[in-house]
Structures are given as structure tokens and as C-alpha cells.
């Protein structure tokens, strides 16, 4: 959910396109590659995708392909170990360690004697898991590819078009101003010439002598009226706009008791939002995680970037939950963490996370912005009623696979060929949010 979705999708598109080209160009090689299953690990699409879902559901908390997390990086693990070894390790690592297997004991020692839990997978599941790891090992670390390609493609496309337009416009304006200047010069010269001429008839003289007095123009009723009107209108507009921002806390970024970084957790480590915000899928509040959820990882991860000792910020979690990192024991003297609430809806508005996340299938980023890039969280959206309403007007209802909506979709399609938005099913009605 919390991936860098936009840049990722671009990256994926890029990678896909290049793969397609590569596929056409070197189809003979790729066919050959697919047959390379001498290690007993297939690389066909179905096993890879099955492996991918298993991997994402179970392994990502401790493992990544290209880097060490809690457990080792899994790149080329199928080459380092035999398949049989991997099968028994994943099924029950402790058993393997106790049997005295050298490799197993070495890994266990290396990773601070943190046991990998036993997973009751079948051989097929593990094989597809390895297939996924094998395929992923062949790829470059995705993150960097994504960033470079993303910037490349954006600089390549958008600025060209808009820059060109701007240039044309500027040139046009310059040309017009020049023409204006030249024309006024001509008029001036001609007037001067005519004034020197005697013997103009009265009517012509009047035209030539006409004093377009600038001062007269400025003091004319019309101009004064217009200026006053514009001034008052601008003032009013500013005042009204200002009034609309009262209570709007967009950009609100208070200092939190713990310098928790969403960029690190959600961005770099790609931890699913729902892992910590347990309520987002099932209840009204998304829930700020309780320290016991932090401790799932931070009982082990005590510092960042491989530093020794306990990090200052992580120590605050330990203090809250009364955990002693030396002994690994929990005490009774707990103190809740008082986070500063950033997103404050007024009490009169009812908002339910599960309605939007589980039913509406909205991404967290839709409202919370690029949270995976935020070192410190700020309020991204205005959270005003107008903002809610706008989204309800524009957003199509996610009805796929939800029998609740079947009748509604039928009814809607009978009367309307536009897609069914939230507004169409009463999403703008007062009592949907106010009661």
C-alpha cells in the first residue's frame, strides 16, 4: 500500500517496456533462460507470482532481497544453499540448528541468535518462494532503478511541452510590445509634423490638438469608481479567503515526543501501513500504534545504521513500555506516549477509516499525501468539508466484487452512462457524515 506508487508505476512501466524490447530482441536467450531449472527451482510466471505473495505476506518483516534487515539478504540464496537445506530451514530452523548443521548454526550465530520462526509451508510453496527470490536476485535493486528512471522520464517529457509553450508566449508578448512602441512613435512623429503645418481646418486641428490629458483621465469618475471597486473587491476576496482558512491546519507539523520517521519505516523499509495502524481496515480510527506493536521489531532493532547501543529515540519506546534492553525484560511502570494529534476533524463530522480503506479501496496517500517521504508527518490535505465533498463528487465507487453495490450499479447504469461516483449513491447527503 505504501509504496512510492506514482514513481513506482512509472518505473514499472519503464522496466516493462524495456523488458518487452529485450524480449523481442533476445527471445532466444530468454527461452533458454526459462529452461534453466537444473537447481529444481522453476521460474515460470505462476510460481513466481505465488512466491511473491507468500514472500510479501510472511517474509518482508525480516528479509529483503538485496539488503540485510533482521535476517540476511536473500539475493542468490538458492545458489548459496541447497534446496533441501532451504526446505528444512524454512519449515523449522530451530530443528536444523539443534541437529548441528554447520551452516545453520553459523547463520544463527551471525544474526544474534534470533530464531527464524517455523513456517508450515508445503514444498511447493517454498519452491515458488525460491522461484521468486531467484527471479528477484537477477534484477537490480528496484529502488534505485525506480528513482533514476522516474526522474529521467519526467524531465524528458513534461518540461519540453510546457517550456515550448511558454517560450512562444513570451516571444509573442515581446513582439506585441515592440509593435505598440513602434506605433506610438509613428503617431507622435505624425502629430508633431501636423502641428507644424499651418492651414489645417478647424475640425482637423481639433483632432490634432486633442489633449488626451492623462490627469483628466485619472480623475475621471469612471476610473476612480473602477479603482475603488477593484480595491474593495480584492479586499473582500482576501478577507473571505482568509476566513475560509480559519481552522484549516494544512501543513500542520508539530514536534512529536518521538522523532519517528515515516520515511524510514514506510518509505525505505516498505512496512505496510496496516502493520502499525491496525484500525485503518476495520474501524473508524486508524489507531496510533501502541508501543507493544513497536516492540515486535524494536525488541531486536535497538539502533539504526548498525550503530551500537540503544538509539535515543528507540529508548523512548522502552521507557514507555518499561523494557530493559540489557535484560530483555518488561516491567510494570509503563507510561503512555502522548503523541500530538495532527489530523483533527471537528467532532460534528463522522469519518470512518474502514469505509474508505476497506470498502472504497482508497490509498492512504490520497488523503495523507506522500507519507512515505515524510521525515516528520504534516497535514497534507486541507481536511475541509469542501475537500471531502469534492472527492465524493469525483471518485468512482469501487463496486468490484462487492455484492452490496450490485443493485445500485444496475440502477445507475439504467439511467446514466457516466461512471457511478460517491455522489450518485448519496455521498453528499448531510446524514452520511453528520449525526
Amino acid at each position: 500500500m505504501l509504496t512510492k506508487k506514482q514513481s513506482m508505476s512509472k518505473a514499472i512501466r519503464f522496466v516493462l517496456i524495456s523488458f518487452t524490447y529485450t524480449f523481442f530482441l533476445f527471445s532466444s536467450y530468454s527461452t533458454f533462460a526459462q529452461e534453466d531449472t537444473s537447481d529444481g527451482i522453476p521460474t515460470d510466471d505462476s510460481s513466481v507470482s505465488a512466491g511473491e505473495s507468500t514472500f510479501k505476506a510472511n517474509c518482508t518483516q525480516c528479509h529483503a532481497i538485496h539488503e540485510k534487515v533482521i535476517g540476511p539478504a536473500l539475493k542468490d540464496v538458492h545458489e548459496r544453499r541447497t534446496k533441501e537445506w532451504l526446505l528444512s530451514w524454512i519449515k523449522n530452523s530451530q530443528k536444523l540448528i539443534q541437529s548441528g548443521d554447520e551452516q545453520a548454526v553459523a547463520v544463527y550465530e551471525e544474526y544474534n541468535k534470533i530464531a527464524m520462526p517455523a513456517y508450515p509451508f508445503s514444498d511447493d510453496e517454498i519452491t515458488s518462494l525460491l522461484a521468486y527470490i531467484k527471479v528477484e536476485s537477477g534484477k537490480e535493486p528496484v529502488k534505485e532503478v525506480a528513482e533514476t528512471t522516474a526522474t529521467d522520464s519526467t524531465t524528458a517529457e513534461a518540461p519540453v511541452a510546457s517550456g515550448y509553450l511558454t517560450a512562444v508566449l513570451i516571444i509573442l508578448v515581446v513582439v506585441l510590445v515592440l509593435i505598440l512602441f513602434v506605433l506610438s512613435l509613428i503617431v507622435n512623429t505624425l502629430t508633431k509634423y501636423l502641428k507644424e503645418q499651418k492651414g489645417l481646418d478647424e475640425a482637423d486641428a481639433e483632432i490634432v490638438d486633442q489633449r488626451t490629458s492623462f490627469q483628466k483621465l485619472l480623475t475621471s469618475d469612471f476610473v476612480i469608481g473602477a479603482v475603488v471597486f477593484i480595491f474593495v473587491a480584492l479586499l473582500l476576496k482576501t478577507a473571505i479567503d482568509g476566513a475560509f482558512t480559519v481552522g484549516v491546519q494544512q501543513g500542520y507539523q508539530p514536534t512529536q515526543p518521538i522523532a519517528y520517521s515515516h520515511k524510514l519505516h514506510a518509505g525505505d523499509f516498505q512496512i505496510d501501513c496496516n502493520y502499525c495502524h491496525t484500525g485503518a481496515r476495520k474501524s473508524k480510527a486508524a489507531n496510533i500504534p501502541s508501543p507493544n506493536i513497536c516492540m515486535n521489531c524494536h525488541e531486536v532493532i535497538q539502533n539504526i545504521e548498525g550503530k551500537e547501543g540503544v538509539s535515543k529515540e528507540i529508548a523512548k519506546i522502552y521507557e514507555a513500555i518499561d523494557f530493559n534492553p540489557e535484560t530483555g525484560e518488561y516491567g510494570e511502570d509503563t507510561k503512555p506516549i502522548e503523541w500530538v494529534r495532527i489530523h483533527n476533524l471537528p467532532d460534528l463530522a463522522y469519518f470512518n477509516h474502514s469505509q474508505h480503506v476497506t470498502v472504497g479501496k482508497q490509498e492512504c496517500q490520497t488523503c495523507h499525501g506522500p507519507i512515505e517521504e515524510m521525515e516528520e508527518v504534516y497535514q497534507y490535505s486541507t481536511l475541509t468539508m469542501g475537500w471531502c465533498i469534492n472527492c465524493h463528487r469525483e471518485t468512482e465507487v469501487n463496486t468490484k466484487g462487492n455484492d452490496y453495490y450490485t443493485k445500485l450499479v444496475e440502477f445507475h447504469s439504467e439511467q446514466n452512462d457516466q461512471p457511478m461516483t460517491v455522489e450518485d449513491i448519496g455521498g453528499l447527503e448531510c446524514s452520511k457524515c453528520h449525526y
Partner: protein
Amino acid sequence: MKQTKKYWKGLEQLDNNADFQERANKEFPDYLPIGNEDGEPSRRDFLKLMGFGIAAVSLAACETPVKKAIPYVKKPETVDPTTPNYYASSYISGNDYCSVLVKTREGRPIKLEGNKLSSISGGGTTPQVEASVLSLYDQERLKAPQIDGKEVSWETLDSEVSSQLAAVSGLTIISNSIASPSTQATINKMVEKFGAKHVSYDQVSFSGMLDAYEAMTGSRMMPQHDFSKAKTIVSFGADFLGTWPNRTGINKQFAATRKLGKDKQDMSRLYAFESNLSLTGSNADYRLPIKPSQEGLYVANLYNAIASKIGGEQVKVAKLHDDAVLNKAASDLMKSKGESLVVSGSNDVNVQKLVIAINKLLGSYGSTIDATKSINLRKGSDSEFENFVKGLNSGSVGGVIFYNCNPVYDHPLGDQIAAGIGKAKFSLSTSDRKDETSSLVKYMAPDNHYLESWNDFEPVSGYFSLSQPSIRNIFDTRQVQQSFINWSGESVSYYDFIKSNWEAKLYAVADSTAFMSFSAFWDKAVHDGVFEIPTMEDQPEIVVDLSGVSSGIGRKYKVDAQGLELVLYQNNSVADGTQANNPWLQEMPDPITKATWDNYLTVSPKQVDEWGIKIGDMSTQKVKLTANGVTLDIPVLPQPGQAYGTVGLAIGYGRTVSGKVANGVGVNAYQFAGSEGGVVDFTVTNVTAEPTGEEYRIAQTQTHETYMGRETVIQEAVLKEYQKDNQAGRSFPKIATAEGYKKPYAVSLWQGHEYPNHHWGMMIDLNSCTGCGSCTVACQTENNIPVVGKAEVLNRREMHWIRIDRYYSHSEEVESLSGLAKIKAMEKASENPEVTFQPMMCQQCNNAPCETVCPVAATTHSSEGLNQMAYNRCIGTRYCANNCPYKVRRFNWFKYHDNEQFDTNLAMNNDLGKMVLNPDVTVRARGVMEKCTFCVQRVQAGKLEAKKDGRRPKDGEVVSACASSCPSDAIVFGDMKDPESRISQLLQIQVGEKSVESKEPRAYHVLEELRVMPNIWYLTKIRNKDQESKTDKAHA
């Protein structure tokens, strides 16, 4: 000699010159020379200060307050903030019981729902059950144990109490009836250990019935009655719908016999012989007002009438002058022999013996009465209690423990107990607050609230239920049972104690194949809240022995006794007064009188005229009432249906030590009750009353007595007509148009609404609504409705979203009159009127008159058929309320929350009380209109659950609070677009292009001629009477 050290601030203090002295006397040095030469502040200074002030205020206002979000440290797995959890538990107060589900939010109980799994209470609630969740957050509760009024620790109390108990002789434990087997076991421990005596009593005594059964069956018990099997019910002063134990269950059973439909064209018939107009009497088909001094004769004459036909010895008693209704009742009872039921509320053992004899003759045992099962909620013995009081005053009772009871207040011998407590060496109360009794004792060991406690119950033999704590102890209180266990020298926790009891007694007899282990059995019992293993025994033999009955009846009852008689009764709001400090109950209108915040004498209108008391709009006068040697000034309320020559007075009021809500409201009626010969008698003869002329105002929510012949409001018929024509009693208004008369809905300026998704609707069966008022309090709890207090009810500003209109019929002579005289006469209820209850709330009109007049579109129509009310849009013009034909909109005249002037609104005026508020519903501000929303928060929550599962909502998932609380299933809520839903089936809904029609012949809209097209249907009231009802006569 001791020297005093001197300290000084500086040299000037040491010098102490005149200049220093002058400055030292000023608190603030005047550095800032504000003001003119002459010392007066200048206009400029004023402007400067004001400018600064405004700037400061606006700056301060712009800064948004920092809000904290504090998560759990260790989140319990089962608690998700903002998601409610439900726990099965049992309501217990005094001797009342109801199986409930406790809705908790973030660990706070906020609402109680009936537990549908219980076959005893049947899934409904009572007003007291609904309100009890607020009593949990009552600040008047004791916060710690006390000795002599000083707070102490439990250790101190335990050690003192233990040493006292060891020394004391003649210890007596006083309680209300105990329906909990484990509680009884802990009391027994105390009894064994200290040679104590346990005496129980009931506020409303059933001693007479219990003693009668003891005489005839050998066991002292109140058998289980099954009203659902009865075709003919005769009640002599027994308000079984309003005050009997387990009345949720009884309401359900009774209402089941009153339902009519396609497949059920017959209903039960109820006769009521009573003095006060009770809830039961107002639901009766035939009601006869009688004096309490005649009651025994009526029962005896009924017995004789039946015995003469069926066979049995006659009782020699005086004959009644007019026994037409009684003979009719007798013949109906005999016609439905085996499906008949006679009940009496009398506490006279002779009357109860006759009732048993009648029921035996009618073959009720094994059918409508199950004597193998006893109701354990009323077991008190008046005679034992009287002995205790004597012992207390003679000094033979050395120590007394009052277990959650308050006899100084709620027993007629209260004065003697109050005087005697001091004579006992040891006195302890476990009451949750300082009350009339506990304020006199030495030791206070406050009990938990029932929502904080583990407990078990056996309300009816063989039917068990559990209570589980749904919140941690709010104060430093301890469960009494735990105290008893500790004091008797054991160390087991009460929870383990209950568990081991259940393992030994219930798991042993439970179906062993159904459960893997005891813990599985226990988990299921805690989850369900109930465990039922009814025993299948033969009915015990009833030996009818009526010797001495006739002389007893003859002595006590007279055919036409002179003089005024007083009948005490329990009303359906404050009930026995245990929860009198609960403002929701105080403000709940009495179902019959519609009065709040008071008790009063109910007097027949004829008597009021005789006394020459002028009754105005909610204004009345007081009379000086003397009964049983007690004299009090009590206001009078004219009550149609009150037997002439009697007056009624509600118990439960007149608390003096209870809390700021209850203290000083009304008078204490218990002290009038007689307690002669070991029987508490709520009927008192030889009463005198003298008008005092003192003016008084009673806050009533309905002052109009009849519906003035508006047959589009109340539509009723008698059963015979209904059987002939199911549409009997219906009124079909017509609208005159250019093309002749048309049905109102055929003529409309409105476009109509399209409801593509849901169309919520409600059906209210006037035939099964007993008027109990559970829905009113349930709605108040669910929707954060404020309590406004007596003064504001007098201003007609009560806030209840659902009211129950009670209409009396007017007398038949009216029809012969005409013109203004007729209209005047129609306003007056007849002497013994028929009563109809009509729950009235926002009708959610499809063509809503309120919507069109709102200048700011604060009330609009939803695509699901609801009238939505957006509080924050409302500017309070009140046009909508003025344009509402049903008068169901409520205006917030004041800020009722955080306002000292409304300090009886406990749920909104202190931090503890606020814990009961429903977080999903806004607390409305001053100046805002509000009304019933069809519990839109529940509708939304139900829809969301369905959407999350990717399905349509199931019928019954979305239920409004009123429908859910209704013990008689009179209110049905559902989606009329769903053809399978109960409401669609019952109303036979036909969905048209832009409208919904009901094909149920009884279904009608109130004020149909207005064409507002409500989404609430009412079903006609059908009375099981022989003759035609008056309204139909008028039609013909």
C-alpha cells in the same frame, strides 16, 4: 534567653522609613504611569488597552489548541478503539433482573441491550435497565470504604469488621430477595461462621402470595406464570405488565397473545379489577374500578361463580351489588378452561389462596402456571422482617449488615429501624452511596456497581445467567460477596467461587457431549450470558384448603365501605426508588399520568370536583393526607379511571439522602403503608384528605386527555369487527378536487423521491404496545438526549425524541350533544376510559413539511428515506418545529451540557457522567433543532459492516434503539426495499415507482389527509370486546 533572628530585604527595610512603609503597603508598585495628570485613565489609554485586548484575544483564538492522541501502552487484542464490544451480563437492582448485552466503547459501558438468548427476559429491557448504565457513573457513589463517615482503606475496615464480627452476638444480614445462588452461598458462609440470621424483604411485598403457596404446596415460592398461553386473563390489582418481577418477559408473553395478522385472527382478553389506573389496567379489554376494601369480595365471588359451575366448596361471603363484569369474566374463564389465568396483586394470604383455588379449578397449573419453577426474585418474608425490627429495638440483634438495601427508606417500619440501628453494637451497610439507611451505620463497605461485578443468577429455577464486569472498578469499592468471603475467613476470589459452584452444580448436569471441558462450558456460559436447564418435573400437588378464608375475607372486606382509601403503587419510571438518583428515570414521563419529577395523589375527577380543587394547565393544589398516623401535604392529579373513593400514590419518591437529583423530589409513600400482623399492606383504609388550597405545579408532558375524535390519529376497532373485516376501524380521508373526491396520496404537488438503495421504515403495532416507556429511555441513552429538569418540562421544553402519547376515550353521552358543547365535552375523558398508547417520534415523512420551510436547508431528505438534520447548519429559526404536524421536533433552548444550571443532567455535566455519552452522536449545542434520526448512526454502522463483507445487510442487523429495547416487539424497524425483511413481510409492502404502499389491512399513517407520506406505519388498535367501540358508533 532565646534570641529571635531578624531578616531584612534591604537597608530600606532595616531603616523602615516612611517612604518604605508607604510602598510596602501597596501590593503592586506603580511603575506604569497609566492615566492623565489627574490620575484618570484617558480615552487614548482605553483605546490602546482595548486594541491590545482584541488583538490578544484574536491571536489566542487563531492558535489551534494542541490535541493529544494517547494510544494504549499494550493494546488489548480484543479492544479496537472506536469499535464497540458487547459483553453478556445481567442487570440486577434490588430484586429485579434482566439479561443484557453491555455495549462498551474503549472500555466504557455506554448502552444496554436485551439479551435475545435469554428465554426468561426475552430480549427486551425496561426503563430501569436502560437507565442503570448512567447509575454506574453517578458521582454520589461512595469512593472508598468508610468508618464513622471517614474514608479508610479496605485493610483497616477488614481488620475492624473481623474483630467486631467475632465479638458480636445476634448478627442479622438484611437484604432484598437474593436470586443469585453464589451470593446466597457467601451469605450462608457468614451465617455459619457467625451464627448470623439472614432476613430478606421486598420493597413491594409478595409475602401474601408466597405464604399462600407455602400453605397449599408446601414450598414457599412464586410460581412461573406463562401469559403467552392464556386466552383469558383476569387481574385483581396485579400490575403484571408494569411492576411484576421479570416484566420484560411478561410483556413479551402478553404481547404475543395480542398480535393479529393474516394467520392469527384471535387474541387474548384481559379483565382488570383495580383501584388505580395501572399499565395493566390501561391495556385491559374490560376494566372495572374497585375499592381495595372490595377486592377480596370480588375474588371470592369469582371463585364462587366458577366453583358453582365446575364444582368445589363455596366460600361464604357477601354478594356484590353489581357483578355483571365479574360474571362475564367468570364465563370467559370457564370457556377457555386450561388457557385461563387469574392473578392478584394483593398481599393478603386469604385472597391469594382463593386465586390459587380458582386457577386450580380452571386447570391453569401445567398450562399458564408452572408450579415446578419458582421465580426467585420475590422471596421476602414480611413477618421475619418485623421480628428483626422488634429484635433491633429490644437489643437482641447485636449486629446488623444491610446488604444493598435501604429499609429505613423503603419499609413502612423505617422509622423504627432508624431508631434501632444505634442500639446494635455493630452496623454495616454495603450500599453504593450514603442513603437513608447507610448514613446511620458505623461501617460502610461499598459494593461494586453490577457492571463492575461477577455474579450469577437463577431468576427462575433451572434458568441461570451470569454477570461479568465490563469496566474496571471506578472507585475503591469491593464486591459484597468478596467481602463476605473475606470476613468469613476464606481467601478464594468470588470469581473462582462462582466458577467452582458452576462446575460442581451445573457442569455436572449439563449435556456432557456438548462440551470438551469445563472451561469450554464456562466460556460459552460467559459468552451467552445464560445457561438454561429447565427441569421436567410433574406439577406439585396443590391441596386447596380454604378454611378460615371466608372469615378472613369477611373481616377485612366490605361491599360498600365508606371513607377514602389509599392505594400505593409502583410506577414505571422511578419504580421502587433504588435508582431514584438517575435523572433519566426522573424525567421519563409516567406512562399513565405523563408526569415527571414528582409523585402526587391520583384522584378520580369526581372527587377532585367534590374537593373543589381547581385544576389549571399543569397547576393543581395540595391536600393534607393522613393515613396510618402519617400526615403529609401532597399535590392532587385528577386521574380518569381512578376508582371513586380511592386515591393512589407512587412509591420511590421522597428520598432524603440519595443525591442531588432525587433528594426532595415528591414524598415518601412507603411510610403510609400498613405493616400489621407481619404483612406489609399497600392499601390503607380510613384515610382522610383535606384540601389546603396551596397551589402546586406538576410537570406533565401531555395535558390533553383525549384525541378529540380525530380518527386519523387513533384508529381502533373491536375484535369481532376485525374478524369480519380486517380493515375495521380504519379511516379513509378523502380530498376534494375538481375531479371529485380522491385519496390524499393521489393529489400531490411533490415530485416524490427515488430510493435506489434502502428505504428505511418502521411499523408500530398499537395492539402490542403496552406503553411501558423502555423506548423513551433507550432513545435517550443512545442519542445523548439531555435531561432538562422539572422547570423546563413545565415550560414544555422536554427533549425526548420519542414520546408515548396516551389517549383516553371520552364518554358516550358526548355523541348526543352538538356544537361547542360537544367539543368541550369531547375534551374530557370518561370516568373509566379506554386507553390507547401511541409511540410518537419523527415520522420521516417523504413529503416532509419541515424540509420545505428551512431557510438554510439544515433539514433535507436522504436517498434512503430519512429526514436528515444537520445540526451545524441549523440557525434555530424553529420554522420546522412549527410546521411539523406531529410536533416531534425539539429545540435546544439552552446549553444543557457543562452548565451548572442543568446540574441534574448528570450525563453531560461532569467528567464521570460524560463517560456514558455515545461517541458516535453529536452533543447538540444551544439554539439548534433536533429530532429522531431513525438512529442513523446505527443504520450507517450496519451498512458499513455489510459493505466490508461485500454483501447486503441482513434483516435485523440494523435496528433502531427503540425497536431493540421494546419488550413486546411492538416496534419493527427495517429496510422496506428488502422484500425478505420482517417489516416488508408484516406490512406486505408494495414498492411502487415513487412510493411505497402497505397492503396490510390494519396499517395506517397518522394524519394521512396531510399527504406528508410518513415512513412509519401504525397498526390499528383492536380491543377484544363484545360491543362496538364508540368511535365506530359515531361513524354509523
